[in-house]
């Protein structure tokens, strides 16, 4: 943003002033607005997957498997004999909720120009993201071992489409988590190096934060579609 721009006292700016440039009509920065518009386009991609899920599920609603049967155990060796439906995926959901909280705390510390505070909350966010991916690895391995793949249905899933949609949708979500982990790693290093302190603001933390919350937001719908309905 050009340093010459005036942001003085405009009690009632005229319409001409608002649209003359140099000031956002949305009172927010270009970068954040564009991050939002990227997220909207990404919403459409996820929505088309979930709408395909809903349409294909309704074509075979009688045969569609119950979540409590497909996801009936914890996919960790030694714990996989117990019948504990949804427990593991609830843990994964909590990882994302907690990471959203620590992310927003990092943004708040950024508003305070508190460099060590930003790092203190970015690291747990990053750890939760990595743990989530690890959990997804365990879950996928377990399900594939059960016989649910992109080309075969397991005893529990019965319907071929269930596994196909599950791997595509959770896989695409996992790809977004992975992207977020890469961004967060870079962000932590850049914060550590004092990049944003020199810049005078931590807006980059906000922008990557928006992306990270979006990943949590999509998970709400993935969780709803595959595990709760």
């Amino acid at each position, binding site marked *: 943003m050009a340093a010459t721009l005036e942001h003085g006292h405009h009690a009632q700016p005229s319409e001409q002033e608002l649209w003359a440039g140099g000031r956002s009509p949305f009172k927010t920065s270009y970068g954040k607005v564009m991050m939002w*518009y990227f997220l909207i386009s990404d919403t459409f991609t996820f929505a088309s997957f979930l709408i395909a899920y809903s*349409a294909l599920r309704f074509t075979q609603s009688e045969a569609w498997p119950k979540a409590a049967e497909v996801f009936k155990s914890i996919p960790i060796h030694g714990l996989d004999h117990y019948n504990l439906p*949804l427990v593991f995926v*609830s843990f994964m959901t909590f990882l994302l909720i907690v990471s959203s909280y620590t992310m927003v705390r990092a943004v708040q510390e950024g508003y305070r120009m508190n460099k060590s505070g930003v790092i203190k909350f970015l690291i747990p966010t990053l750890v939760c993201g990595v743990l989530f991916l690890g959990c997804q690895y365990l879950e996928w391995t377990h399900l594939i071992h059960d016989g649910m793949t992109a080309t075969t249905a397991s005893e529990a899933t019965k319907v071929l489409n269930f596994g196909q949609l599950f791997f595509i949708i959770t896989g695409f979500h996992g790809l977004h988590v992975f992207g977020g982990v890469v961004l967060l790693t870079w962000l932590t290093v850049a914060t550590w190096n004092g990049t944003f302190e020199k810049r005078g603001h931590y807006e980059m933390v*906000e922008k990557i934060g*928006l992306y990270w919350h979006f990943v949590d937001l999509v998970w709400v*719908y993935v969780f*709803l579609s595959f595990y709760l309905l």
Partner: protein
Amino acid sequence: MENNHEMPEGHLHWNDQEYSDSRKDVLKTIIILSVVTITEVGIAILYDHLNPTGGNFKWAINLFMVIASIVKVYFIMGTFMHLKHETKGFLMTVFVPFTFLIWAIIAFTLEGRSWEHMRSLLNVF
């Protein structure tokens, strides 16, 4: 938020009061999200335990799950993604495109029903 007027857009620097208010708001939100999620999972497991074959009230449970998810989305977008504090014009540019999705969800759900009906007529699957 009037107090942002004199700052370059998006480059907020908070005073102590704004900082502590915002922390309280976020803490409240994470508690709500946790409680809603625990309730959802608890009800899902309990219902499945009581009705292993499906039961008659699955639709009510589904309705609850959808509403609970919308509540979660509201708090994530409103507080965590800061939408509660954005201008109305910006909110419009975010939410108006979603009306297409409402149409798509209704259209393709009905389409799925229709395919199921056609499959039963063909009886080859």
